[in-house]
């Protein structure tokens, strides 16, 4: 369902980014980059209880012509961004949430790997396969 999935580190550099349509990848990269601004804005806006919603789903960041961007932030300020094609039957919010949850779980597994240095690009095959599974659904 997702057209593009990106994991951005705390310092706002990408740890992992993958798009389904290999072409036009740059467009998605750009989209993800611009969505970071929205994410930041939301993070600062949701200042209620610190860490209360930190880990949570930010929801639809902004819809563009033919896709929507959803965001999710973890406690450690790692951001997940999912770009979904609008032409798809609009996915339910819960589905997006579950996708983020899965992403988060896989990301946690990657983090648990002692051989992974935080800040490295994510090269875990398990993570890749999970992301691919989520993206394959698009087509």
């Amino acid at each position, binding site marked *: 369902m997702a057209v593009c999935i990106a994991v951005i580190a705390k310092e706002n550099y990408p740890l992992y980014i993958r798009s389904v349509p290999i072409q036009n990848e740059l467009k998605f990269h750009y989209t993800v980059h611009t969505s970071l601004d929205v994410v930041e804005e939301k993070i600062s806006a949701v200042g209620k209880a610190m860490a209360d919603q930190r880990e949570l789903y930010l929801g639809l960041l902004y819809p563009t012509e033919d896709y929507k961007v959803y965001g999710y932030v973890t406690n450690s300020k790692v951001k997940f961004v999912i770009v979904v094609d609008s032409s798809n039957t609009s996915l339910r919010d819960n589905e997006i949430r579950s996708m983020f949850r899965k992403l988060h779980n896989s990301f946690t597994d990657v983090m648990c790997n*002692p051989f992974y240095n935080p800040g490295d690009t994510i090269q875990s095959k398990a993570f890749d396969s999970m992301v691919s599974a989520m993206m394959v659904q698009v087509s």
Partner: protein
Amino acid sequence: MESLTLTDGEQKYYSDLFVYCDTDNTKKVASNGRVLDLFRAAQLPSEVVLQITELCGATRLGHFGRSQFYIALKLIAVAQSGLPLRVESLNSVKDLPLPRFVVAKNEHEARHTAMYPDSENQGPYQGVIPRPPGRGQVKKVSAHEVIQSCVPTVEPQLQPDTTSPVVSPHQSPPTSPHWRKHKRQASGGNVERQPVVVAGAVWTPFREAQAGPVVAGDGMWSAHSPPPVQESWENSSIRTVASASTTNEIQRQSSGGYDDPWKITDEQRQYYINQFKTIQPDLNGFIPGSAAKEFFTKSKLPILELSHIWELSDFDKDGALTLDEFCAAFHLVVARKNGYDLPEKLPESLMPKLIDLDDSAEVPDQAPDVGYSGSPVEVTPNKSPSMPSLNQTWPDLNQGNEQWETFSERSSSSQTLTQFDSNIAPADPDTAIVHPVPIRMTPSKIHMQEMELKRTGSDHTHPTSPLMAKPPDLSEETKLATSMKFVTANSGDGYSSSDSYTSDQDPITSVVSRQRSHSGNSPEGLKVVAAPPPPPPRPHASHSRSSSLDMNRSFASVPTGPQLAGVVAYPPAVPPRPLPTQTSGPHSGHRLDEGLAAHSTTSPQQIPEQPNFADFSQFQAFAASDQRSDDGEKHPESLPVEKSSEGAGPLRTVKSDNQEERAAATVNSAKGSIMAPPPKPVRRRLKSEDELQEEALPLKSNVIATVLAIQPSIPRSIGKDKKAIQASIRRNKETNTVLARLNSELQQQLKDLLEERISLEVQLEQLRPFSHL
């Protein structure tokens, strides 16, 4: 002897072979046994071998000196090339291929040479017991070559890998008892060639070289070759070979875990366990990620691969390695060093013994591209030094396994937790939707029932229709008492079924079933009720209540003879009964619900108790006057009050007033549910409750209504049949109890529903802030 010119390759090869045969480590003389074995391995006819030995001068000398040995080898090459054996050919033949021993290929030569440098590295591993197969790769080749030369060509058909590994054990035993022992065991275990054969496929390149000989060699080897080979190995720099052999063996065992290249052999496991102990003395404990990282980094595998290995082996994703996980990781490292590609999923044999964690149904990546790159992979030398030789055998390997298993079970729990969490996610959307429904079962059922009842009730014709539909059935019911009981039973059943529904997770079906049951019950009940009150002209004018009206109609339509009789019996009693029954009814009905009360009132009414008559009449008066108002007011009161009261009889008197009101209310409710809108609005207040109860009691109310209808319809021939009256009284009492029970149940359901509602509201409140988008 003629001078022998050898190429460098040949020189090297020959020297290797010589060393191999130099079991006495004389560096001068090759033991005859070895040499002969080697020659046999050359797959030459014995005559040729004899000729060769003669030509090289060994027969003269009686032993194989180095030069003789070399000449012999050259002659073997000549012979293998098909050239006639001539001394002159030694030097005349150019480009003579190296003598092949048992399918020894020239590539072995290359490998052989290539391996030398590696073999050196292997040295340190000598002391280590089952050296991870990885190491073995290179060594193996050299070992193989040597072995091959020594190996009698007896075993022709063993698969390549089998041969080499087989060799190792035999050779090892003499030297290092502890290891060899293990190896022996391992090799012993691997006597089965088939599995080796399978594994052999994996070991393509050099396996072939080893092809036939070694395997069968087990027995033979043990006979003679092992010791000499062993010694030669150890004495020579070809210690690596030994290690290779061990690794081979390990490999064989691991690879040939028969069909499972990933199986961990016992020696390997012991080795791993020992390594584990060095890091974590407690075998049931964990190795933290950092320690494991350091440990495995020493293997000099690329971090990416180590990361992948970690992902595969950390089964419960807890960032720490249990013994099982550690063994799996270690095994994967070894395999990787041996050139095995890492599987995408953890092979089954490596999975920790988790109980129900089977989701990943890991398909053992059995024959992954066994790119045995014969490339000299540096095994983790660092491990060996740190590790004491496997002197300490893990005595209770099984016990260890058990421990591991229990251990893994523990980890499995965490795994299950993890899995569970991840599984919850996708289910959330559904559960959010589903959960409420099942929880709502009872209410929904009740609701459904109520709806059904309402439907039946509202539709005058309708309620009777199911009822009427069953008249024939009712006709079967002859006894009034039975019919009454049937009613109660039905109602009871209906309600009990509702109870079952509550337990049932499928509200809809339960509701439906309940409906069905209720419908089944109600009509039957009604019929039963109807049965007794025959169609006789019931001036149910008094019972203008819709339900009663319907009942009347239904009764009228029910031409049940015997039942009619019973009904008739009823009818006569009706007139007086309505009051008492109504009083009792409402009160019992109230308990259950307004609707029920109404019905119940009607039913008891039908079996009026003389004493109640008065009450009832009063009630009726009340009802008439206070129906509407009372309904609304009484509902809440009645509900709790009724709930408390169970005994219809005693309550009746006690609550005569209430009953009257309630009766009115119930009557109203019955009416309302059926046709009187006014009461409905009042009820709407407690709609949830009322509806539930009303719906829950639709059948009962219908029954009661029918009873009521019957009663009023019955001509007031009061003192007609005392027996009938008493019977009806009895039945009414039963009905009352049933209704009371129903009422209590409904009350309970109502409470549950309210609780659920509250919880949902709370959840909603909690969620609201989250959904700020």
